[in-house]
């Protein structure tokens, strides 16, 4: 007979993101970094006094840990099986005179399914409010990976798509029009082969630009669902928008409420949701012209 005691959870120590000193917008790009790796200082696990927080999300086994290692200089164990990374890793790097803390989230296929891993990833992207979310995808199975990408883009406005494993894609004869993809998704898309360090400088550049606000994302948002659901969503979204006009992801919150997500219900009750909108005002400033890669 199963009892309550088998309902144990891994405790994910998700500390709230520490307060940042300042958060300047750098639109004219006077001190933009020179775009090469020479400008990168890998800080390993030294993460004191960072300016920006970067979250690393992606499907299992897409090379997230490899990207993490390439950025931080750490040598987190990588392996070729899904679910290899079982603990959340953090590291740091410095680029263009800014210090970045990078958090490697557990690999997930989705953010909707309430498994422990997915909750850790989802909560960090939503409540941790990273300045940039880097979504690592496997270029050889883009369609499957876009499931997660589209879900992340429902939550956050600041994301960079890291189109990893390009070498494997090439070997398999798969060609991807990354500019077109960036245009469609409204976020920077960087083709990389992290195992060979290919594309890491470009990735850094875009992380920097999105973090500092010099690249403003216009993320793709889902539109089409079933008519019955759509009616319910729009009714609820309007109500939420009335209460929290600044909230950048009201539609997504509405969806979660319709799925009975307790975390979101609680955050609505205790006012955490309101904080999300205040901090995010920076994002909802007048948008500049859409920059495409």
């Amino acid at each position, binding site marked *: *007979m*199963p009892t*309550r005691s088998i*309902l144990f959870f891994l405790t994910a120590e998700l500390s709230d993101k520490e307060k940042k000193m300042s958060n300047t917008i750098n639109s004219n790009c006077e001190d933009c970094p020179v775009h090469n790796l020479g400008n990168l200082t890998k800080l390993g696990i030294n993460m004191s006094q960072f300016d920006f927080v970067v979250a690393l999300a992606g499907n299992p086994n897409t090379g997230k840990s490899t990207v993490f290692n390439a950025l931080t200089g750490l040598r987190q164990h990588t392996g070729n099986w899904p679910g290899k990374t079982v603990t959340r890793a953090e590291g740091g790097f410095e680029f263009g005179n800014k210090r970045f803390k990078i958090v490697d989230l557990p690999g997930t*296929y*989705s953010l*909707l*399914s*309430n*498994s422990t891993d997915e909750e850790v990833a989802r909560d960090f992207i939503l409540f941790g409010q990273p300045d940039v979310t880097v979504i690592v995808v496997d270029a*050889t*199975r*883009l*369609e*499957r990976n876009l*499931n997660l990408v589209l879900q992340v883009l429902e939550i956050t406005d600041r994301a960079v798509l890291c189109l990893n494993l390009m070498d494997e894609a090439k070997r398999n004869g798969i060609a991807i029009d990354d500019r077109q993809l960036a245009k469609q998704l409204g976020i920077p898309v960087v083709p990389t082969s992290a195992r060979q360090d290919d594309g890491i400088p470009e990735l850094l550049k875009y992380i920097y630009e999105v973090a500092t606000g010099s690249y403003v994302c216009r993320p793709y948002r889902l539109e089409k669902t079933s008519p019955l659901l759509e009616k319910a969503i729009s009714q609820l979204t309007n109500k939420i928008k009335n209460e929290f006009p600044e909230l950048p992801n009201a539609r997504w919150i509405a969806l979660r409420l319709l*799925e*009975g*997500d*307790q975390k979101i*219900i609680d955050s609505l009750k205790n006012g955490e949701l309101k904080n999300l909108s205040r901090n995010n005002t920076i994002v909802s400033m007048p948008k500049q012209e859409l920059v495409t890669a």
Partner: protein
Amino acid sequence: MTDPLQALLIGGSILLVVAVIFFPKYGLIARWSRAKRGIKRVQIEDALKHIYDCEYNNIPCTVQSIAGALVISSDDAAELVARLSSMGLLLTLDNGVKLTADGNSYALRVIRVHRLWERYLADETSVPQTEWHSSAELQEHKLTPAQTEALAAQIGNPHFDPHGDPIPTPTGEIPPKKGRSFLSMNQGDFGVITHIEDEPEAVFAQLSAEGLYVGMHIMLIERSNERVRFAADGDEIVLAPVLANNITVEMLENEKEKIVSPMDTLASINIGEEATVLNISKACRGQQRRRLLDLGIVPGTKVRAEMRSASGDPTAYNVRGALVALRKQHAQMIFVQK
């Protein structure tokens, strides 16, 4: 040194005694603790549930029916009824008993725990469905309100239990009964099963052995006093009317949903063959269902069987460019078009 034979006998008997005492579920300790649990509270709660059930289904409820449902003597049942009315939980009327507002909300609280627990077992664990009910019968008397709400939150505050019954809200709201009896369907009607009564247990066990589940699409082929014959999931199922009476259905109006014709499942396609997913059976629930969806197994997805494991099961399928291994029992719940 001890004589080995003697030692063996002593050792064996010690092992036997320990097993008799400690064996889970059948051991003495397990039996004793089962016998000991709050009899009074259990009786009160079971009686309230029974009366609530009667009222929900518009069946008259009497001391006799309570005695029958709880398997106690009529005297004990009368005593129980007196006790309940002194607690202000029910009113005694000429033709039976009726719950007060307090009694009603108490009953709903117990039912909420019961149904939530069944839903938890169905979605998050692999406990066989014939055991959901008996496990919930125990839990409904055990969980505290705080534990109940934590459980609800963990499984996403569901609104229906796996038998299709609505789960009362914490404040005791519950929507009115929907659907109609299976026996009210006419030949050629399409319907979807919305509820399978989980009591009596023997009947439910038979229905679940036939592979029936809530959300199953069916088409009535023949209805007579001896038998009910209908098509579902590509199979033909024959039931005795007394069994079919425990099934509630809703009519299907939408032409697109009227699918009960023989369908292939993913498990039936050969290595190297390709098929298109039509839908996932509603019998596939909770985590397992969500994982299949996450992996991109949704209606319209093209799937190809790539290889079988050295031990014959599972099979690896190519789904949207990725190689995904599924066990046969799950592949059988994915309907496809070859």
